């Protein structure tokens, strides 16, 4: 089998490596810093009080969920175009991580919504389109995990992945027009319009870094796991060919 991989990472022999250990440590440190700034040092919001602290996880998670989706679509495109197994695994890994982060956005948002809006859920544009995003991702994963041959699953999943971002955009657009209740997409207006500044802005910044590191760490590990599985299969392939030929020679 020829595997053209636009291989930037060397073939890993375990999911961990020095690089990921550093990222892991940095992620832990930044999470600690996030806890410190987010929970202790940053002031409660003028209008929303303590609950505003969810923001520091909520918003970065959403951003990285989107990044995961883009990676999935891009990886799928590269797979279909260049036959790159490497990119296929990137697409799969990031879809899984994006699903997790979308779920985090939903959960944190709902926890936040309860004190803010009095309910866990409203049928607002952003919320609804996030829910649809989760469902689109679940659709991709359902195809990728089909009980069928590897090639069948990856190729079909890639087409779903390719359509992921366009679909998300169309869904968002339509839901946007449909109704809007959620925060306007601006970092500066929050809740009832209070500005984010000073320590709050800094905490959010740390949130982005921390969540970003976690995202990266998870992605690399998930990718490497998939890659190693692939390698095992690949190595198995030579053995399988040898066995099969032996079977023929024996008869």
């Amino acid at each position, binding site marked *: *089998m*020829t595997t053209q991989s636009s291989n930037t990472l060397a073939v890993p022999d375990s999911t961990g490596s020095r690089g990921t250990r550093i990222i892991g440590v940095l992620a832990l440190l930044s999470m600690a810093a996030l806890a410190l700034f987010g929970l202790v040092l940053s002031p409660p919001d003028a209008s929303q009080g303590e609950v505003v602290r969810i923001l520091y996880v909520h918003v970065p998670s959403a951003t990285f969920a989107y990044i995961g989706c883009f990676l999935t679509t891009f990886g799928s495109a590269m797979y279909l175009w260049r036959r790159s197994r490497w990119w296929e695994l990137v697409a799969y890994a990031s879809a899984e991580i994006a699903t997790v982060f979308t779920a985090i956005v939903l959960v944190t948002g709902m926890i936040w919504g309860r004190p803010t809006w009095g309910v866990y859920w409203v049928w607002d544009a952003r919320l609804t389109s996030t829910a649809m995003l989760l469902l689109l991702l679940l659709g991709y994963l359902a195809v990728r995990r089909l009980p069928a*041959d*590897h*090639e069948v699953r990856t190729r079909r999943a890639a087409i779903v992945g390719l359509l992921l971002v366009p679909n998300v955009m169309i869904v968002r657009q339509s839901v946007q027009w449909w109704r809007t209740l959620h925060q306007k997409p601006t970092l500066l207006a929050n809740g009832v319009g209070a500005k984010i500044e000073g320590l709050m802005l800094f905490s959010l910044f740390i949130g982005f870094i921390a969540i970003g590191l976690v995202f990266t760490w998870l992605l690399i590990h998930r990718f490497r796991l998939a890659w190693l599985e692939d390698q095992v*299969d690949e190595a*198995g*392939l030579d053995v*399988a*060919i040898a066995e*099969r*030929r*032996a*079977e*023929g*020679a*024996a*008869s």
Partner: protein
Amino acid sequence: MVRLRGAVALLGRFPALAGVDLDVEPRRVVLLRGANGAGKTTLLRTLAGLVAVANGEATVLGVDLVADRKLVRHRVGLLGHATGLYDDLTVGDNVRFWGRAAGAETDDVEHALTRLGLDGRLRSVAVSRLSAGQRRRTSLACLIARRPELWLLDEPHAGLDQDGRDLVDALVREATAAGATVILSSHELDRSLQLADEVITIAGGIVTRDESSGAS
């Protein structure tokens, strides 16, 4: 016509073909023999451009299968284990549909139906109501309506009665006479050894014996 060198074909992750070398000259009748699971069906499907060649070289009818295996498809005719017929359409409709899809004229279709003895009552019977052998005949009619250059017959005698078997042999001889090449797999050696110019034995996804002299 056909030239394979170390051709590997994967079904899922299983190397159904594990490095096949094969040369077939035009207008020959080649018999593939081998145990169940040896890889005969996979080889025929690979030659038809349906299964990807994962490794090695493969040229069929001048088309490089590694580069673009789609180009060979409309020039071959494959009679497989599965028929791919539309169960709810009649025999006539099925042959007409698959024939026209491959660019056949009405005459070709009629000729195919007549040849296979499907022009009587059976013509307007839905495929779902056919007996096993009748279904197989319909599938064969679809094949000859296409007038392929390369015939790939996977156990063509199976399920057919004595007349049907004779008919298959006659069709194969006519095809080679008209310039086509025929590769067939079979477990029915008596009949097919007589038909074949060459006999290739497959086992474990490789060619283990190549008798280009023929056994007839």
